[in-house]
């Protein structure tokens, strides 16, 4: 087998340290079938269209977007839980998209996931001890002393290790999410994909889980891909943030920069839309608002996918300037603002 070429670098994407996971031109389409007896493929849901990014060691990369933006699909495709339509996912020199389920299995020790819904992602019929021990058993690591290891994991995530014989339903939402985190940690992974890990939790509970995740990341040197729709959470946990809209990455920047001066009109709209829990600031803010809803990913708009809702396209651009928005897909490149933006007319704006 030939040694695969290292993927091309991504200029301007930032991040320090060696890349752990390299994603290039990742595409995932889901078929849309016709109704009736003979079901034919009548179209595709363009869930992810050519996403490229690196996840570095000891880094939290945030992936934000609204529902239907493809962020969860990216998370699942990275781990080969969905097979990619095309594109590359490189982990430690190996091309994950080409691996069979069996070849993938040893790598699953190093690549773990925490799911959004702490109610649906834990088996209700086995004890919490067994839930956390399950990955160890599957990978043949449940030897003598493994019981202690599981108790230690429960302690690590802030649960009482004596509660190991209880069942998932006996725990609150925040505690269940901690169980999910303990299970993901059991095999000592290097990369953890967190798919909306706190969005089902009340704020007072959410804060504890976020603190836990940040401690784990910094002390254990893990790499997190943190998928969420809440920008305030992103700002808090992530070093870099990538913004998705309708299957494409539209902007990627260090968290601080992204919030201080977002350059893509969609990022600006997102930052504007998040209410600040500060009455005076909230009422005095400058806002970029968008019209309408996200278009269908079955027939996404040509050129720039955001143009149908873009305030810049609607109000500022001249007829001739709009042509490139309609005809050309804007590439995710640095346009002078210091970070890559997929907008022909990107312009940094201060909104906070």
């Amino acid at each position, binding site marked *: 087998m030939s040694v695969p070429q290292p993927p091309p670098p991504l200029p301007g994407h930032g991040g320090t340290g060696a890349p752990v996971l390299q994603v290039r031109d990742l595409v995932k389409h889901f078929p849309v079938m016709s109704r009736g007896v003979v079901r034919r493929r009548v179209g595709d849901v363009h869930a992810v269209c050519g996403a490229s990014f690196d996840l570095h060691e000891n880094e939290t990369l945030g992936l934000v977007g609204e529902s239907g933006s493809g962020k969860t699909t990216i998370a699942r495709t990275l781990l080969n839980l969905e097979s990619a339509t095309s594109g590359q996912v490189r982990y430690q020199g190996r091309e994950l998209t080409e691996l069979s389920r069996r070849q993938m299995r040893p790598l699953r020790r190093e690549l773990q996931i925490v799911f959004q819904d702490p109610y649906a992602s834990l088996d209700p019929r086995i004890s919490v001890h067994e839930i956390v021990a399950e990955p160890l058993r599957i990978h043949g690591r449940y030897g003598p002393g493994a019981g202690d290891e599981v108790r230690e994991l429960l302690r*690590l995530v802030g649960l009482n290790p004596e509660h190991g014989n209880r069942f998932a339903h006996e725990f609150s939402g925040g505690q269940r999410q901690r169980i999910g985190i303990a299970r993901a940690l059991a095999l000592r992974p290097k990369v953890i994909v967190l798919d909306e890990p706190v969005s089902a939790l009340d704020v007072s509970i959410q804060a504890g889980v976020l603190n836990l995740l940040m401690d784990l990341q910094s002390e254990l040197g893990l790499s997190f891909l943190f998928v969420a729709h809440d920008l305030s959470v992103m700002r808090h946990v992530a070093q870099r943030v990538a913004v998705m809209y309708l299957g494409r990455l539209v902007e990627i920047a260090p968290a601080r920069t992204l919030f201080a001066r977002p350059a893509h009109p969609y990022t600006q709209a997102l930052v504007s839309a998040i209410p600040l829990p500060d009455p005076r600031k909230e009422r005095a803010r400058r806002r970029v608002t968008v019209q309408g*809803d996200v278009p269908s990913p079955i027939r996404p708009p040509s050129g720039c996918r955001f143009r149908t809702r873009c305030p810049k396209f609607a109000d500022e651009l001249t007829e001739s300037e709009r042509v490139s928005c309609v005809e050309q897909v804007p590439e995710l490149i640095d346009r002078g603002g210091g970070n890559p933006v997929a907008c022909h007319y990107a312009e940094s704006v201060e909104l906070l």
Partner: protein
Amino acid sequence: MTTSQGVQAGSGSGAVLEVEDLTVEFPTEDGVVRAVRGVGYRLERGESLGIVGESGSGKSVTALAVMGLLPATARVRGSVRFEGTELLGLSDARLSDLRGSGIAMIFQDPMTSLNPVYTVGYQIAETLLRHNPGLGGRAARERSVDLLGTVGIPSPQRRVDSYPHELSGGMRQRVVIAIAMANDPDVIIADEPTTALDVTVQAQILDALETARSETGAALVLITHDLGVVAGHTDRVAVMYAGRIVETGSVEDIFYTPRMPYTLGLLGSLPRMDRDEERLTPITGSPPSLLHLPPGCPFAPRCPMRQDVCDHDEPPLRTTAHDGHLSACHFAERLVDTGAGEIFDAVGADAEALARFADTESEDSV
């Protein structure tokens, strides 16, 4: 002690809605669930009150009790007066005359609050005709189109004949807002109106809600768990915990000088976009079960300031140093000039376990 002093906003006589010492209990097989325990507030004409609290704090049940929408098994006591008329104990027929025209309600999930088998135009017209039977079908339709336009639905002439499933979540919620404002109500109660929506759509819906308020001059009760939404859209705030209002005041009071540890904890656990906070300060534990509520302050088990008195005396809602700012805490004064970080621990992973785990990790890789 569960007496409520209520949320007083000045002593003007212009109150449209007065809720006093409202209690709601649900008898269940396991015992009585005391969902609301003495809630009181007073809403002036045109004013907006935010009610915040986490899941299970009783904020929605309070709203349903005001609207008379609780199941017959619920035991509701206290007083709810709309423009001086007592609503508790009124027949359903009498309440129906009031719902929509006097008090309108917007629910969280627009898919379940709209009827899937009727067009949205029909549903708006239905509301209009219920309170104005003489309006006539054609006029009702025209008014429906107007209302759809007001709440920001593009091409309302076409959309008026759409069924709810043909509209997106945001559009449906606009329809619900259109229905709520159709009869020019004096009070709109919005129960988590944007929780099911994406943030950019949430911003649009909140704008539509503001439009509805300015068009009708209605007072607003905005129930939400999102402190940010409250900060931008309400004049006063009531914070609920375990079926009671535990703190209330103007938005500035609540956000800048909280006098109840729970409020302080909530604010400290919020990650914010506009600043770099080192650590968040979560509130440990979870809210108490309303089935077997222990005596004393319901927040005491989670409160880092707990003293012995907190375990047996439930503090009443008392005025703080600032007029109109009330707090239900024995030690409210101690919170003067105190940040969440000084009271709450920024707990994360168990530090010792984490160190051990990190050690074994490095051994493994050797």
